[in-house]
């Protein structure tokens, strides 16, 4: 990571810093958006997209980009979503377990692995 991200999206099961991470990206329940500088927390829903017939990852990437984040923390990321995120310059980090708060701490401590390519196949 060349520059430290300020706004980060976390795939999560519900709102708030104590929410568990959701290992899925395209069909996760929601994203918790955390501003690492101010500590502000927002909720970004994935309700409409969760049950998409196809292209859930692409649409999820589009939604996350709309929240103007510089990084994403998720359990897994497939090839199409990864292409969109990479083209838009969003760094993708892997964390499958724990809460948003724990993942944020590990991210800031440089302990989360960054993906240089998708880690799962389509329709994982």
């Amino acid at each position, binding site marked *: 990571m060349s520059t430290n991200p300020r706004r980060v999206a976390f795939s999560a099961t519900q709102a708030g810093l104590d929410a568990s991470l959701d290992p899925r990206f395209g069909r996760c329940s929601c994203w918790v958006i955390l501003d690492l500088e101010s500590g502000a927390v927002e909720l970004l829903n994935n309700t409409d997209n969760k049950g998409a017939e*196809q*292209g859930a990852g692409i649409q999820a990437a*589009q939604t996350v980009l709309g929240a103007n984040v510089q990084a994403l923390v998720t359990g897994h990321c497939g090839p*199409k979503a990864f292409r*969109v995120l990479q083209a838009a*310059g969003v760094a993708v980090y892997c964390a499958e377990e724990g809460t948003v708060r724990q993942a944020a701490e590990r991210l800031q401590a440089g302990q989360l692995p960054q993906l240089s390519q998708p880690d799962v196949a389509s329709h994982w």
Partner: protein
Amino acid sequence: MKTSEKERPLQIAIASGKGGAGKTSVAVALLQANAERTRLVDCDVEEPDCHLFLDAPIVQKKPVTQLIPHILADQCRHCGRCVRACQFNALALAGDSGVMVFTELCHACGACAQICPAGAIEEVSTPVGELIQRQSEKGWELVTGILSVGHAAAPGVISAARRETPVRPVPFTLLDSPPGAACSLVTTLRDCDFALLVAEATPFGLHDLELAMETSKKLDVPCAVVVNRMRPGRTLIQDFCKVQGVPILIEIPEKREIAESIAAGGSLLDAEPDLRNDFRNLLDKCKQMINSSRAAHG
């Protein structure tokens, strides 16, 4: 027979909500029993299989193409309207990198090109599948639609298969439908003259028959039912059809010999030659029902 009846070939879809209910077995048997007056179009383009049971020389192969968007990067203003217009999640706006197209998800609806205010979307003809036409010396013809691996837009290939010109004009075109009750089935059933709904005599079979029948009714396609794997005393399909007022035209018994024949690449008629006459009559019954349905609707 009046001339008008002679002229227009009838399209009969063999459908069922459930996969593995016996659509292909019924379609193949219908074709074999009516070889001189039917052609068959395999509309199950994601996994066509009629050709496995029907051996005949290939007379034509041709690609199926669709218009897929191509973004003219120098004209694109990154407004994102095309992305929001796409109902298939096939487009994404990746910041300064501009609009990305995921060709394999595109259903060629053309909405993106229509809505683009900058004229930055060009529609390019792209191969998405193939049609294979086989012609038997017994008279019948088989058109197989094949969707290329990795593509999601089955309806385009199904429509192309349905539009294919017959090798020779015959009074009946049979359509072996894809399973499910989604857009692939709708594309196959739409504007058909009749639907033969194949249902297995099981609770699962009944559940999916309900879906297929509802689809058929919504599309205004008259239908009748073929009960497959019928066992004495198992009347759940019959009970349902009675309530719906939909006739059952044939019942195929559950027999090990039939399963063995089909597993070996043979057909229903190889195992049960006596059914040949029933399958000839079945087509005539469909025609009668089409005629009476037309009479009833004026």
